[in-house]
């Protein structure tokens, strides 16, 4: 219990440090790597919370594929971020006020893991009690995802398919020569 608490504190401190580093760093390659570390730390936190499915997703998607896609995009653009012109005081004020409001509102949240949380009272007891007799499988997350809530999951699958088709549609346009007029008869790669 104490060890878990210490690991939590350490992971959260690393998380904050990495988040600040992501904001400060100007080298986009470093930022992509720091994002991967951030995802890995989040995955560690989820694993501590016994949310194995979420931890696996965060590690595979956040630390894995997103980083690769960031790097693939970085190959197309410059490595350095443009320096920000000065400090935007209005934006800083908005962010500060919003953050203060959120921290104030967090005091009204129910205790972490309390039995009378709204999240534990609606359909969660049914899933917890009935999953094994309904489906005969021990992983409740898979049962909810693909069994009880399979229409939602179908929506997600079609969202991913649509995202894939959108990327294909955007990147199928032949690139234009920079700082020059594009030629009308540019040879098109097989698409």
């Amino acid at each position: 219990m104490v060890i878990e608490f210490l690991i939590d504190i350490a992971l959260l401190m690393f998380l904050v440090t990495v988040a600040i580093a992501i904001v400060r760093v100007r080298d986009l390659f470093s930022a992509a790597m720091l994002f991967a570390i951030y995802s890995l730390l989040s995955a560690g936190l989820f694993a501590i919370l016994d949310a194995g499915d979420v931890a696996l997703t965060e590690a595979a998607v956040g630390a894995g594929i997103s980083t690769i896609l960031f790097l693939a995009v970085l190959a197309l653009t410059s490595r350095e971020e443009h320096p920000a012109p000065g400090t935007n005081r209005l934006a800083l004020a908005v962010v500060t006020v919003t953050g203060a409001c959120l921290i104030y509102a967090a005091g009204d949240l129910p205790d972490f893991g309390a039995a009378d949380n709204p999240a534990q009272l609606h359909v969660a007891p049914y899933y917890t009690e009935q999953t094994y007799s309904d489906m005969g499988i021990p992983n409740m997350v898979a049962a909810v995802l693909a069994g009880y809530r399979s229409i939602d999951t179908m929506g997600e699958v079609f969202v991913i398919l649509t995202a894939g088709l959108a990327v294909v549609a955007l990147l199928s346009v032949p690139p234009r020569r920079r700082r020059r007029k594009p030629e009308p008869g540019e040879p098109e790669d097989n698409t």
Partner: protein
Amino acid sequence: MRTNGILRVIARFLIPLIMLFGLYIQFHGEYSPGGGFQAGVVFAAAWILFALIYGLDAALAVISQRAQFVLACLGALLYAFVGLLGVMLGGRFLDFRPLLESPQAAQQAGIIAVEFGVGVTVAACSMLFFTFFARRKREIDAVEAGGAD
């Protein structure tokens, strides 16, 4: 990167293991953490590692772009088809119970089938993302080189 022996040997060692792990979390998702989304991404990661080490052309020779398109659509269609199968057999959309005699076995079969559809779509879409971004670099280079002449 094809010439770097260390990368090549390690990749050769890792790629089958990553694929095996992807298949494991695909088909073991009812018992342990995992499922179609994670499995698809992990499986695609193995292919992307192959593409990074051996080049995009070699990777596209294994799974062509056309196959990626077809698989991305087939996965989503498999999901919808399992749903419609339930309707045809007298239940509601995405109701797995009519699929088999025993309700528990039917639910498990339905979950495995739709998770497989999810995995195929996610893997194919991840590969498509990488293919198009990696090819974009080559296209831009070709255009820039053409401009320098």
